[in-house]
């Protein structure tokens, strides 16, 4: 018996334990482990650091370690590339910190109707924003969401090749690599991008679009930031060949850009982290897949559905709709694996979208576009910097440093000394772009911030 009383572990008083053991009819706790063979029991204490039993000590210790982080609150950051710094309304943090949402898991319509309604509202708001019919519980991240989307396209069409943009997020390729399921998507064919605009090369697309192709993936904006303005043509070309259009979008852009459903996307996917979720070192990811209603049996995650009450007076919510799709029921015959997803972030996104409304989404989209173009215009005036992609962009754009004789790594190291996190280094993943970085601007940046960046870049590349 331990001498220590652990605040998270009740039933530690010796009299309580003795009474419980007595009721069970054993002499000691060890007797309860008798079915673990002796040879498999650990006979020594785990080798772990001495505990910090007092919460006060624990908090000081962890804060001490975290103090070695320098967050984007403390520096001026222009990093994006899949995780985005936006203003998170106080209401969002307040709502998802409510203990009932925070600590719920597997309730039912009668115990957990509230958080199920919140999740249903996430599904509904997201589908309104995307102009798609159906979505469900989120995916782990946009990489997983895209993989799921491509697999749905493969199952719907019975085809095993997908076309992906040459400028695709390189982490997406690493994720696709991890799943190598022979009978689904077996071949990923890259479609060239126009080197001047960064847009998909339509001729190359048409060359590669064969009757074997299940779907064409478009990132909009692309990983390199440009708005894929040809997406309707791409969709028409895909559809003409019996393939699906899969649009991976940044939902933050959809107050100003057309929704995937507006331009004929069959499947939309992406990451809703920009919608009210803190970056959390990448843990804020909130992948989503939204589809046409006719593909619903291919959706692999749980979905909350609304149902009337038997008394006809109201409605409630279940979350095991169409269960034969799911891991939990179908095991190896499920549409894909699933598990504990990012539903707290889904509630955050629902709160965010309900605060923003249509006007807020329009305003933020316009603000971001204006600010990012302003930043780009300042950098265009900076000697030695190049802006290689000419097409319009949303929140991100490529800056090339070849004219400065510096590498991105050198530039970013110098910026760091000035308290700035420069754009994500593209040089390893996109050698064709030379020494280039992906800069990201959002509503959190002021005009002063953007001038500071331009001046700093002028200084460090001089």
């Amino acid at each position, binding site marked *: 018996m331990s001498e220590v009383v652990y605040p998270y572990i009740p039933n530690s008083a010796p009299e309580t334990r003795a009474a419980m053991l007595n009721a069970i009819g054993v002499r000691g706790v060890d007797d309860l482990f008798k079915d673990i063979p002796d040879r498999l029991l650990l006979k020594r204490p785990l080798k772990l650091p001495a505990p910090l039993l007092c919460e006060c000590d624990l908090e000081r210790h962890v804060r001490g370690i975290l103090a070695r982080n320098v967050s984007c609150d403390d520096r001026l950051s222009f990093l994006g590339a899949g995780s985005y710094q936006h203003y998170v309304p106080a209401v969002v943090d307040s709502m998802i910190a409510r203990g009932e949402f925070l600590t719920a898991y597997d309730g039912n*319509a009668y115990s*957990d109707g509230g958080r199920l309604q919140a999740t249903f509202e996430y599904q509904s708001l997201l589908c309104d924003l995307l102009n798609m019919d159906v979505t469900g519980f989120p995916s782990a991240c946009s990489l997983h969401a895209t993989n799921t989307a491509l697999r749905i396209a493969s199952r719907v069409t019975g085809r095993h090749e997908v076309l992906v943009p040459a400028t695709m997020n390189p982490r997406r390729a690493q994720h696709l690599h991890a799943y190598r399921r022979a009978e689904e998507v077996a071949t990923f064919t890259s479609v060239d991008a126009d080197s001047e605009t960064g847009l998909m090369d339509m001729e190359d697309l048409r060359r590669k679009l064969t009757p074997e192709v299940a779907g064409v993936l478009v990132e909009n904006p692309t990983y390199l930031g440009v708005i894929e303005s040809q997406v309707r043509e791409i969709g028409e070309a895909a559809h003409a060949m019996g393939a699906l259009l899969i649009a991976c979008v940044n939902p933050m852009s959809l107050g100003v850009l057309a929704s995937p459903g507006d331009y004929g996307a069959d499947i939309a996917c992406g990451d809703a982290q920009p919608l009210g979720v803190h970056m959390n070192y990448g843990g804020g990811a909130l992948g989503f897949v939204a589809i046409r209603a006719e593909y619903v049996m291919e959706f692999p995650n749980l979905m909350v559905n609304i149902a009337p009450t038997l008394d006809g007076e109201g409605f409630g919510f279940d979350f095991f709709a169409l269960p034969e799709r799911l*891991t939990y029921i179908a095991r190896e015959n499920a549409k894909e694996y699933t598990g504990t997803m990012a539903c707290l972030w889904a509630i955050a996104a629902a709160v965010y979208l309900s*605060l923003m409304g249509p006007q807020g989404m329009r*305003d933020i989209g316009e603000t971001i576009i204006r600010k990012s173009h302003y930043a780009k215009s300042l950098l265009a005036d900076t000697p030695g910097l190049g802006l290689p992609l000419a097409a*319009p962009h949303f929140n991100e754009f490529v800056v090339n440093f070849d004219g400065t004789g510096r590498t991105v790594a050198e530039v970013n190291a110098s910026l760091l000394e000035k308290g700035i996190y420069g754009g994500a280094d593209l040089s390893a993943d996109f050698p064709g772009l030379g020494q280039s970085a992906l800069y990201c601007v959002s509503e959190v940046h002021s005009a002063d911030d953007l001038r500071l960046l331009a001046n700093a870049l002028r200084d460090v590349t001089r």
Partner: protein
Amino acid sequence: MTDQTRLRRFHSACWDEQLLTDMSVDGERGILVPTPEREIMDAFHSLDGLVPASVARDRPPNLPELAQPQVVRHFSRLSQMTMGGDVQSDIGQGTCTTKYNPKVNERLAGLPQMTEMHPLQPVETAQGILEILHRARGFMMEIAGMDEVSFQPGHGGQAVMAAAAMVKAYHEARGEAHQRDQVITTIHSHPCNPSGPAAVGYEVITLWPDDRGYPDLAALEAVVSDRTAAIFITNPEDVGLYNPQIDQIVDIVHGAGGLCYTDQANLNGVIGRARAGDAGFDMCHFNLHKTFATPHGSHGPGCAALCVSDYLARYLPLPIVTFDGHSYGLDFDRPDSIGRVKDFVGNAMVVLRAYAWVMNLGAEGLKQVADTTVLNNNYLAELLLGIPGVEYSYGTDDRRRLDQIRFTLEKITRDTGITAADLSTRITDFGLQKFWLSHHPVTVPEPCTPEPTETNSLQELEEWAAAMRQMVEEAYETPDVIRTAPHNGVTTRLDRSYLERPELTYVTWRQWKHATEKAASVS
């Protein structure tokens, strides 16, 4: 249990809450967005040329319009209609390990040094979180008895899928991938154990239990072959039994050239007592949102620690956290890696909480977790087995169940027609979360799988048993009370016609409104 055990006169908040879309008032705003400064507006007032006409939005998105107080009240009311672990004991949620989530860990995870960290920041500005990840890695290695860890998987299923991809990579490196195309699992292993391997292309063979509830060794010997890539097995399985032959199972599969993975979702009853590595396993995972007390968040975000032996480390997902004795880094130069299963390093804010939890408890505390969990579970069993009709599955011998127990309520159903599912609904009337029945397929008739954790008090255990006792009495005496339940819930009984008619499944309000408007126009 004493006669004083009191059942609550509970009633859920029942706000009869509208859908957000029905609360919309034209022109309301919940928050305003910064307007660019004048110099920016002067330079880019017109968006012409900035947004290509071909993809410009031609009408606003169809979102509701609400002022801020109404948004706060709406979601606050929804939270009140949710039975999280902060408000009740969660004893019913077998296989989920829903324990108390320490509030101090929420405070730490809410610091800007966590929330405002961009995953691509220079590593020298992320030394704090990398240190947490690296130190937590060491904890997991010691608890598992293994050599390397990835926190990238967002949940157990993703760890299993990653492991299956690693199994494939391992056999590829040995030139046997083509031949080894089968994965073995057991019916009482969590369903992600078959679905993860299937997602990377494996044929799955499932073993059924013998009459003692263990996977049949003879059946295993019959199916292992040079086609066996691996076994994926949960231990203790969801019925609560620790498999005493687990190392023999490992030996049989190793003998055939396969790898051995164990899903440690049920670690809570063995943490600090028995280790997967000591039983010979090559790989395992822990769910940090279960055993390591991080919040379930209404269904995530979670995190799985994928632990492997040294000879498999090179296949782990990208990147791995490194420490050179001076500073922490991220290693992407891993040519044999399977790639990624989740973006960036995974859910670092979950690892942070788990780190704090382990640091608070230490080795002795973790053993206390297992000991108290098993004590609580066996005490609850003692109370429940005293209720007529509540029985152990797989025999009434003296074997001890560890973290949870799959009971069968078959006798009650036979006698009264009241099913386990009916009781799982009725128990919510007492202010207790629904109880878990079983994963599919249901191997135990009328199953009931409670899982008390170390964070449940004696009083909570007795309250739960008292609710079961009360319900069983009702089943025999006033069964309509159960059949018409819930009486005190968030809502009254739902019309579940959609189960028979899938076309009645509506997962967005636009589907729902379309259907209800159509129905109204018909009538």
